[in-house]
């Protein structure tokens, strides 16, 4: 079975500053893939390039079509939902309006109301806060809202940029458990970027390791976890 997303020779730069130097990786149909790496390795840049948010070159093949260079809003319409760094909350809208925004790219309007309830099923806390201004939600709730908003697209692939960032360990554990279930039950492939490597490797099937814009290692999550050098550098035991 061909992968859902196949990236080859991906380069990206901010102005003259080159950040990615020819990455190759793939995301399978379903399952969880994780991109690991230190601060500044280019993880966020990779996700931003996939969504056409920054200038890039190389091939990004999604479901057989090369989407490199297409505008962000058109890429989203293919079924790629991006939960961005900083969560991208529409702070002035209510929680529920944020979720409705997630369905903007869909044409099957009739099913949207049911999908809002489906998201509330995953995150009951959001239902309690549905009429509240989203900017006043806690960090964990805003992360749930961002994931819920992404699910409203009914995506085939979900990109998550540091979902654990700034959250208490208990909330993170809860969030990752939900992510695992969401991936399995909704048949969404997840590509997760994380600094918290131990956490991400627990969830992932497959992992890639980036160092300063280059792919230095890839393999099953178990292989990466058991690698001595990764253990020393990223897992700290």
């Amino acid at each position, binding site marked *: 079975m061909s992968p859902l997303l196949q990236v080859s020779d991906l380069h990206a730069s901010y102005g003259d500053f080159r950040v990615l130097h020819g990455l190759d990786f793939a995301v399978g149909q379903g399952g969880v893939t994780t991109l690991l790496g230190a601060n500044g390795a280019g993880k966020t840049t990779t996700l931003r390039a996939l969504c056409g948010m920054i200038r890039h070159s190389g091939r990004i093949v999604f479901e057989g079509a090369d989407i490199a260079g297409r505008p962000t809003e058109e890429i989203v319409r293919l079924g790629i939902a991006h939960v961005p760094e900083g969560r991208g909350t529409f702070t002035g809208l209510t929680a529920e309006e944020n979720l409705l925004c997630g369905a903007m790219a869909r044409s099957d309007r009739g099913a949207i109301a049911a999908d809002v309830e489906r998201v509330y099923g995953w995150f009951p806390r959001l239902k309690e806060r549905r009429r509240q201004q989203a900017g006043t939600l806690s960090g964990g709730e805003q992360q749930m809202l961002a994931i819920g908003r992404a699910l409203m697209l009914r995506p085939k692939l979900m990109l998550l940029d540091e979902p654990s960032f*700034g959250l208490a360990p208990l909330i993170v554990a809860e969030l990752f458990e939900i992510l695992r279930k969401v991936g399995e039950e909704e048949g969404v492939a997840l590509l997760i970027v994380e600094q918290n490597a131990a956490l991400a490797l627990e969830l992932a099937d497959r992992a890639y390791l980036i160092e300063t814009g280059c792919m230095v290692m890839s393999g099953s999550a178990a292989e990466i976890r058991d690698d001595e050098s990764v253990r020393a550098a990223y897992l700290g035991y």
Partner: protein
Amino acid sequence: MELLIQQLVTGIATGGIYACMALAVVMIYQAIHHLNFSQGEMAMFSTFVAWQLLQWGLPYWAVLPLTVAVSFAGGMAIERLVIRPLGQAPILSHIAVFIGLFAVINSLAGFIWDFTIKPFPSPFGEGSQLGGLISNHQIGMIGVTLVVLLFLYLFFRYTRIGLAMRAAAENPASARLVGIRVGRTVALGWGMAAAIGSIAGILIAPLVFLEPNMMLSILLYGFAGAVLGGLSSPAGAVFGGFAIGVIENLAGTYIPVVGDELKLPIALLLIVTVLVFKPTGLFGRPVVQRV
């Protein structure tokens, strides 16, 4: 007492026009974070278009929707042709372009229709109600304004495209990530602002007469209303517009020094006062955010 009520009514009637202009300014401000100085001239040009259609013999109630439609298209065209190419250019470039637009539209109207003052008919007739307390046209102005505002409220509150426009205005990057075509929502905002402005121009024209400089002071009052209510708050801008109308009339009547001549400086004074003491306006509080 009767004088007071009369001035209040007059203030609310013209305040509705200011509210429309303030709202048009705020809509564009929300979309591109710049103040459109040519908003008034766009409205003036629309009013001339309406006048021309009337001259050609079309009935008033056909002219109104036709003018609104033409203005909507014109607003979108200005965004596409002039504003979009500016992109993320610095604020001074935007100001220069807005002033340029102001001059071009003003001169163009003078070139086509000349600078002589023209009377503009009111569809509501000449008479008045309640023993002369309120003219038919004032009632019409208030009525039409309220209908327009109600329509806009429902549009932004309950429609999908209205929600998309609010989302795109607040966070364009996030809006793109949910698939909103932000370029289209910005163009739509320009179209709607131009359409609202055209209604304001048509409603005020019977009072101030039609000529290329008719919207100059109206736009200033509109700016004052927008600043008073808060540039980040459409509802605040509407309130601000009405408030400016009432304040202007009461000050003109009851403060002897002000009279008719010094009404406009009051608007300026209000702008400065608000900017000094409460830069976000009465309702435009900075959005609460927890990190």
